[in-house]
């Protein structure tokens, strides 16, 4: 009995220590991070800005990873939880992230009594939300596709609990985790840059970072420095790809169940990391600590030879579990209640005059999205068809597209705006272009994958039947890539709605340019003094339209297409 109690006490002490450190950091940080009002546009500050931006991304990613792995794990292993968590995830994925930024800033700034830390937390929270759902979904998919035999084999060997998580669940998630992390970082950069830019409205606090640097530089007309800033960003993205993502992709092949020939080329960088002395020492130490702890634990609580898996858990565990359950339900209800009350006060009539324009704004935004969508299709389909069937082209286009999509288009906004804005109808064109950048990569990737997956013998068969060129496209390629086209469109439109928020209301060179659109309305409502009612109304309107479109249109279309056009033998 004694060793077990001692063990438990040690764990509790460790947890308390971690919490204490966290609290100290938070409180201390609040006092020591100086507020920044000005973003001087100077080359020598660039590395500092880059470091700040990167740090935000990293912190958000770590949180997102921890959260999403647990979320996906719980949803995948607990039937009852799954019924709530997965639909919730679905909705969360459809909500445009940037719509929440003003609210997040408001919340966190109030929480930290107006310090810069609040704004930092808001931006980190924003990046977190743009990354987490993707990863959670990936984990869920990975765990639910683990073959039953693996579970049986582990159960047969007496592997349970944390050991099972470490040996089975976590490794099984790795391929999807890596892939989705790359996407998440790309998305994260996009939003980070955008929200660093957003922050520099007329009087809010500025966050030092690449986004604000770019915004300032272009606003001051310093093209050279703007380009340099974009260059730094591209450098970081490319460096991350070469040094981190490629080796990780290579390493993650080890964790796949399917033994299909991979398209990932072996990475020399991976070998470098593997032999890198500090990492090697760290890995060895981790492994040793892990197994030593688990062996010790096994000795303290040896696996009973006839393991009592059906028996109900001991009384104290049940009581604690019930208390935790009650507390968390109570807490959630309380939060819902407060949110509900706040919402009711905000939405109390009379509604602001501008709300009448919401339907028209939605329509205008929708049109812009449609135009951007058509333009995106116009270039991504030919590229996908051309590159997807030529392996040599894929080897070039693939990585290029991956890196290009990781470079946040939001960093190019200032440039694009600078060049387009002064022409007639310029704001609309700029808006469409900016929305386009948020849509096209999702389309390209999905289309590439779809065309690439068309079996070679089907292509040969159509050719031998005399169906070439346009005819082949119409009979084979187009139908075969329809499911991927729809998946890409779903995510593309999601990206488009997000981009809309930063595209329809532009603050440039001291002037504001705006068009009639729901994004503009949302943005405008955050301008001081801030129109909370409009913020909520426009956000709700947008979310409703998006969820509506997803469920009633895209999902149905996908089911029909998958049913009819999926290639299976």
């Amino acid at each position, binding site marked *: 009995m004694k060793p077990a109690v001692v063990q438990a006490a040690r764990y509790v002490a460790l947890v308390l220590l971690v919490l204490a450190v966290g609290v100290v950091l938070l409180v201390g940080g609040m006092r020591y991070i100086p507020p920044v009002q000005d973003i001087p546009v100077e080359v020598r500050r660039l590395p500092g800005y880059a470091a700040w931006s990167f740090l935000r991304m990293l912190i958000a990613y770590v949180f997102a990873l921890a959260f999403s792995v647990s979320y996906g794990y719980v949803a995948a292993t607990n039937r009852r939880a799954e019924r709530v968590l997965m639909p919730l995830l679905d909705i969360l994925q459809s909500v445009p992230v940037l719509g929440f930024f003003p609210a997040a800033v408001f919340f966190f700034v109030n929480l930290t009594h107006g310090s810069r830390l609040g704004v930092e937390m808001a931006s980190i929270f924003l990046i977190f939300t743009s990354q987490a759902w993707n990863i959670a979904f990936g984990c869920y998919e990975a765990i639910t596709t683990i073959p039953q035999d693996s579970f049986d*084999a582990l159960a047969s*060997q007496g592997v349970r609990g944390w050991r099972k998580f470490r040996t089975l669940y976590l*490794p099984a998630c790795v391929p999807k985790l890596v892939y989705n992390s790359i996407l998440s970082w790309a998305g994260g950069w996009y939003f980070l840059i955008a929200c660093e830019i957003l922050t520099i409205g007329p009087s809010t606090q500025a966050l030092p970072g690449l986004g604000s640097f770019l915004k300032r530089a272009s606003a001051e007309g310093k093209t050279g420095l703007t380009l340099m800033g974009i260059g730094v960003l591209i450098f970081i993205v490319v460096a991350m790809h070469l040094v981190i993502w490629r080796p990780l992709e290579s390493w993650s092949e080890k964790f796949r169940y399917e033994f299909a020939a991979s398209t990932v080329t072996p990475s020399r960088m991976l070998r470098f990391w593997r032999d890198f002395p500090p990492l090697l020492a760290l890995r060895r130490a981790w492994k040793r600590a892990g197994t030593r702890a688990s062996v010790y634990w096994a000795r303290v609580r040896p696996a009973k030879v006839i393991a*009592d898996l059906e028996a109900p858990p001991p009384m104290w565990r049940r009581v604690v579990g019930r208390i935790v359950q009650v507390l968390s339900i109570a807490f959630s209800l309380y939060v819902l209640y407060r949110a509900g009350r706040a919402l009711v006060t905000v939405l109390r009539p009379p509604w602001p005059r501008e709300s009448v324009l919401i339907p028209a704004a939605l329509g205008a935004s929708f049109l812009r999205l449609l135009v951007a969508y058509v333009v995106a299709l116009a270039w991504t389909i030919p590229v996908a068809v051309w590159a997807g069937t030529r392996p040599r082209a894929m080897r070039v286009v693939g990585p290029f597209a991956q890196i290009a999509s990781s470079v946040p288009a939001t960093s190019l906004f200032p440039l694009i705006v600078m060049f387009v804005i002064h022409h007639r109808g310029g704001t609309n064109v700029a808006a469409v272009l900016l929305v386009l950048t948020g849509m096209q990569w999702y389309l390209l990737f999905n289309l590439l994958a779809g065309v690439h997956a068309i079996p070679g013998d089907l292509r040969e068969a159509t050719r031998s039947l005399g169906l070439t060129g346009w005819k082949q496209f119409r009979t084979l390629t187009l139908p075969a890539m329809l499911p991927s086209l729809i998946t890409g469109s779903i995510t593309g439109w999601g990206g488009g709605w997000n981009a809309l928020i930063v595209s329809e209301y532009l603050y440039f060179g001291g002037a504001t340019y705006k068009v009639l659109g729901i994004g503009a309305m949302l943005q405008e409502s955050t301008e001081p003094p801030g129109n909370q009612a409009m913020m909520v109304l426009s956000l709700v309107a947008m979310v409703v339209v998006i969820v509506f479109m997803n469920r009633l249109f895209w999902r149905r279309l996908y089911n029909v297409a998958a049913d009819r056009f999926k290639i299976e033998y």
Partner: protein
Amino acid sequence: MPAIIEIEHVTKIYPRPEGESQILADVSFEVADGEVLAIVGPSGCGKSTLLRIIHGLIPPSAGVVRFAGRTQEGINLNCGMVFQSFALLPWLTVEENVEIGLEARGLDETQRHKRAAKYLDKVGLDGNEDAYPRELSGGMKQRVGLARALAVEPKVLLMDEPFSALDALTSINLREELLDLWADPQLPVDTIVIVTHIIEEAVELADRILVMASNPGRIVESIKVDLPRPRQKKSAEFAALVDRVFSLIV
């Protein structure tokens, strides 16, 4: 020989949207200590489910499983199981796959290494320790499965169609090696329960054959195999036994 496993009135029912599906109906039998028992039957007769109930991976809907006299509730870690699909974790090497259950039993690193090396040697996989499953042929993979099951030194070895996923020649090879292993007095495993749909395999390996029927899954007959070892597969007695079992299944 005393019975090491007793199955009493075991029934298994799965609820389905169209109504319940009864996989096993009132199955009762014993497994004697030290015998090789084969369970044969047509596909769908529930023999794999029965094996998992014996192990404790699946609880029976009704009935009781007893091991060495004690009623079993949950997974019985005195058994080791070999799977038709090998069930190896693709991200672990051969050695790591074999060691997977040893940590849970409190063995430290040296002990685990020794234990794994011992059983890898017995199945002939010495030299393959750092291979990953995807590099191995089916026969090698199943050897890993076997070594893994043996490494926990179980009293009973359960085998679920262990050679069905292998080609003819490899199965012949592995069957022989299994017999050699079983004859090895150093092996802690005395009792083997093997599920198969290949009658010749059952007659070649087993001391006793349980014949099952389907819809619902139940035991039709228990046949003792008295042929001397090594079994002469071309002998008349062998063929007669095969025919007898076959006629019971059809």
